């Protein structure tokens, strides 16, 4: 919504500057988004009177105009068709600066020297009219006057950012009313000078509402004998301020009155009616209609159609029809002013995808009792500007008039909700200034004007009082409101803890979009993915079923930017749909790619590998006092033989592996990516165990090492478990401290060096006891794995 500063001054007197006005309106909730000059500045243009017009001898399109600009008489060359003696027109003399910065000079046109020129509206930046010289009102114009000052062009467009609950502010009068509330005075409504004649409108047309739900009120007037022509400059200026294009006097008047009053109007070419009727009905099944933008559209079932009883004329409240549009040859118009059901308009507007100025007002709720004033005001202007004859009376069908809503507001309640101490008379003043009908008392009785559909309850009145009384005046109360016992969501604390552990392991947390590209998902994920009905694009059209794709995208992004080490994790929700049931779960994922984190000058560069990732997860589990186990298991996102299940005891927690190269390639990742995916809810449940103190060992430990040569397929973990079995009571810890392949070990074998700590809880072990246990362990390795002791 936009109007100009001086336009508002027509309805209410104020002397704030545009900036000050904007600030004050913003602080009562009528936010001004932007202030811009109404017109671009020009200078050196003054009013001249054309005294004489001669044809140019060579070029018959050009004329030589003798003008008087108040300082003298001169001859300028002009190409416009509308010059004639007696015309007052803008004259840009040499030295004038026009919009766009062009400086006017004496020029020679078709062999004739022209000291400046007469201007069109387009040349002055006042409208798009470029074919004709601007014509000034001969009654008011005086030769030699500065045009900028004559037209009073110092004005500003105020662009408002309105909230959807305030349809009344979608009008100049409504905005003026807000200013009135600030000042404490009421607006001046424009005076109505309507001269009717030429018979009763009711004899020329009937109005019938068959769909009173969709259209509770329909009023029409007929204006006959009109002449379609361009609007005068003052009207064009209003439309320009409102951000609308000028078309012709009739359409411009309808638009102007809509902006002034907030009531959308529509003018039909009455001659196009096949019958002298208006019949308002709901659309019929499968009905099609051509709107005035020349689009044939299928009408939604609950569209309100304006018809003449035979053919449809308009989609009520949204857009007129092509066939009944006002054109250059229109002589009689039927002017419509109606009230439509906001919900119906909104649904139809959405289904048609048509957002007209009219629809935007109707769907928020115009004033059902403002219909008549707007109709009369527009008809009067049509008589004035188009020479029309307004037939007697409006044909107004309004079967169930809307009465102002009556509410009560308790001053005590106002002060309680806002936390202030306002006196009741102050509340009454505020409401009166907003044009509410008010009767004081212990509770204030309020009649809500029908242009305020947003006010339906006491609380709405409390807001009105609060906003005009100024939010800034409400105290800042910092009371210690008594602590409410709080229990922070445990998952949240756990999440923080896990994040801190992973950060300590060198990982960066990432936050990725939950919306992903279905074309990149694995088949398993695609089957689970929740689809959006109205996505922004195909790339963002499903909810992620796992964190895999999101993190691969982050890996790709960083690889493309030469980030050498990519070590990331995310904890977030994933969404899975199984048999129509949507489940949201918390998931965690870790991904490693690129170079391992090492001290490069010392050890050189190496790529991340399985053991880096396993180490991170083991550390995390250790912090939770959990012992992580892995076992081979196939997962679709991982490469064969590098795909493992993660578990703690009997509980599967997730998976770990090397991202399958073909999946990585879908994200343009061509290097190995190691990833782990965890069910975060399960991890949280598993991680609840609290520590239990165990006495510290009182007796010394003894260490023994051995190195065995075994087949390369033997798993180190199995060796460790086997050693432990040799003397469960005495063995405290078993570590693998070296794994070696290569000469002199046979090609299909490896050497594994194991260190074993022996300790008893209740005594110091003797050498003999330790040696005995150790040789048992070695023996067991020989038997179970065909191990050979390496000396």
């Amino acid at each position: 919504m936009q109007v100009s500063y001086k336009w508002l001054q027509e309805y209410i007197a104020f002397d704030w500057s545009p900036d000050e006005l904007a600030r004050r309106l913003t602080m009562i909730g009528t936010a001004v988004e932007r202030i811009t000059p109404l017109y671009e500045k020009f200078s050196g243009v003054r009013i001249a009177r054309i005294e004489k017009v001669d044809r140019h001898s060579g070029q018959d399109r050009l004329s030589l105009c003798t003008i008087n600009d108040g300082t003298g008489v001169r001859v300028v060359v002009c190409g416009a068709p509308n010059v004639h003696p007696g015309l007052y027109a803008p004259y840009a003399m040499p030295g004038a600066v026009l919009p766009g910065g062009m400086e006017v000079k004496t020029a020679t046109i078709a062999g004739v020297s022209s000291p400046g020129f007469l201007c069109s509206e387009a040349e002055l930046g006042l409208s798009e009219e470029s074919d004709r010289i601007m014509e000034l009102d001969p009654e008011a114009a005086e030769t030699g006057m500065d045009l900028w000052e004559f037209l009073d062009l110092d004005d500003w467009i105020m662009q408002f950012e309105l909230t959807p609950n305030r349809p009344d502010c979608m009008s100049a009068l409504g905005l003026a009313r807000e200013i009135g509330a600030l000042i404490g005075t009421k607006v001046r409504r424009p005076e109505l000078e309507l001269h009717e004649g030429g018979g009763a409108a009711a004899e020329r047309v009937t109005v019938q509402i068959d769909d009173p739900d969709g259209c509770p009120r329909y009023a029409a007037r007929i204006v006959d004998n009109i002449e379609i022509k361009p609007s005068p400059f003052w009207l064009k200026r209003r439309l320009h301020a409102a951000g609308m294009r000028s078309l012709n006097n009739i359409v411009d008047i309808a638009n102007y009155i809509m902006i002034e009053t907030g009531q959308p109007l529509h003018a039909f070419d009455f001659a196009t009616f096949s019958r002298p009727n208006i019949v308002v009905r709901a659309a019929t099944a499968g009905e099609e209609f051509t709107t005035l933008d020349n689009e044939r559209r299928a009408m939604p079932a609950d569209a309100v159609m304006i018809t003449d009883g035979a053919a449809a004329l308009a989609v009520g409240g949204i857009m007129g029809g092509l066939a009944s549009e006002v054109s250059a040859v229109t002589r009689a118009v039927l002017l419509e002013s109606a009230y439509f059901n906001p919900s119906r308009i909104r649904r139809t507007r959405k289904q048609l995808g048509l957002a007209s100025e009219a629809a935007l007002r109707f769907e928020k709720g115009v004033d059902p009792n403002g219909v008549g004033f707007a109709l009369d005001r527009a008809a009067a202007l049509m008589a004035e500007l188009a020479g029309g004859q307004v037939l007697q009376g409006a044909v107004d069908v309004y079967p169930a008039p809307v009465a102002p809503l009556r509410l009560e507001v308790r001053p005590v309640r106002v002060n309680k909700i806002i936390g202030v101490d306002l006196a009741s008379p102050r509340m009454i003043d505020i409401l009166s200034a907003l044009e509410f009908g008010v009767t004081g008392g212990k509770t204030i009785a309020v009649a809500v004007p029908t242009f305020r559909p947003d006010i339906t309850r006491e609380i709405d009145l409390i807001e009105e009082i609060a906003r005009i009384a100024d939010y800034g005046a409400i105290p800042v109360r910092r009371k210690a409101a008594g602590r409410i016992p709080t229990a922070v969501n445990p998952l949240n604390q756990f999440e923080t803890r896990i994040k801190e552990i992973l950060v300590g392991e060198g990982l960066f947390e990432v936050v990725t979009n939950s919306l992903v590209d279905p074309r990149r998902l694995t088949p398993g994920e695609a089957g689970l993915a929740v689809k959006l009905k109205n996505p922004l694009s195909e790339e963002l059209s499903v909810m992620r079923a796992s964190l895999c794709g999101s993190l691969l995208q982050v890996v790709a992004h960083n690889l493309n930017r030469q980030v050498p080490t990519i070590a990331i994790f995310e904890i977030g929700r994933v969404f899975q749909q199984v048999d129509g049931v949507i489940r949201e779960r918390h998931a965690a994922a870790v991904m490693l790619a690129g170079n391992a984190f090492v001290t490069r000058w010392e050890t050189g560069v190496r790529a991340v590998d399985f053991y880096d990732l396993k180490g991170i997860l083991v550390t995390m589990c250790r912090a939770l006092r959990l012992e992580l186990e892995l076992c081979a298991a196939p997962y679709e996102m991982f490469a064969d033989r590098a795909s493992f299940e993660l578990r703690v005891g009997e509980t599967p927690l997730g998976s770990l592996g090397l991202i399958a190269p073909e999946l990585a390639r879908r994200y343009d990742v061509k290097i190995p990516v190691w990833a782990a995916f965890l069910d975060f809810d399960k991890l949280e449940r598993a991680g609840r165990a609290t520590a239990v103190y165990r006495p510290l060992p009182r007796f010394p430990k003894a260490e023994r090492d051995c190195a065995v040569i075994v087949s390369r397929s033997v798993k180190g973990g199995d060796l460790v478990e086997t050693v432990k079995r040799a003397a469960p009571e005495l063995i405290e810890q078993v570590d693998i401290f070296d794994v070696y392949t290569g000469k002199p070990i046979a090609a299909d074998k490896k050497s594994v060096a194991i260190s074993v700590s022996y300790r008893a809880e209740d005594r110091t072990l003797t050498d003999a006891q330790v040696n005995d246990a150790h040789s048992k362990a070695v023996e067991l390795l020989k038997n179970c794995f065909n191990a050979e002791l390496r000396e």
Partner: protein
Amino acid sequence: MADVPDIDRLTAQAAAELERAEDQQALDGFKSRWLGRKGELSLILRGLKDLAPEQRREIGVAANQAREKLQAAYDQRKGALEQNKAVAVDLDYTLPGRTVPRGGLHVLTQVTDEIVRIFYGMGFEVADGPEIETDYYNFTALNFPPDHPARDMQDTFFVEGDYLLRTHTSPVQIRVFEKRRPPVRILAPGRSYRNEAINARSYCMFHQVEGFYAAADVSFADLKGVLVGFAEQFFGAEAKLRFRPSFFPFTEPSTEVDISCLLCGGKGCRLCKYEGWLEILGAGMIDPEVFRAVNYDPERISGFAFGMGIERLAMMKYRIDDIRLFFENDLRFLAQF
């Protein structure tokens, strides 16, 4: 019979000598004198045969132990001297140290944690709800009637089967009110979604923190108290707030809250578009319709709610000029926080 050697005395003598050894030459001398084939201890061991059988074993063990001890002390001394030399000659303090890798929390997590901490200090606890919501919780119960233009304020993603992606974390209000009786004071951070084109200023997903408090006698003045307290802690004591009337269906009266520009302090600059103020959040008194939807009596219970975008706060706090940076996760960006 030879004399019984006094091994303890010899060991002490050797240890003292080793203490005095300051260079390789002195160490070499020590080694040949005590540990070499012709060293004192070797001589003792070789002389065992001359001892009485009962002494042989005792002296032998003692001499061997002494030898091991001296060898260890020698190794340690040698190592120390070598390192001293290496330090003097080769140490390059400009080479990178061996560091433990350190990652980082996402800047949005850091900002969320800070917000949660500040409100926790004011008695707010944390709650959350589903991201895939029903129309009822996201709109209807929050007093957005069906077909109401207010729904256009939040462009919504719809999901198969009559669900939608929550457009704010305000549905948590309803979910908590349904389960609890006042007083309740909750903070609900979480992901929200809007069907908006992606550019430097907007993204289809963002993180919102909704806060709300319902109890007897809560007023707009209390709302101001909590938000001013928050701003002072989050942005600094010099931060000023401005409360402007606005409209949200689930609050009445409603307010938009601006903060004095962080760059110019309110004088007017490019960041605040010369207005001196930056919009940071929306708030208001919880609408009686919301209380009715959860069977609270609005005559007895009043409350306030506020909602703010974490990305927006992070962008202001760290002067980040493109919201997409949060979700691209360029590690060079993440490492800055």
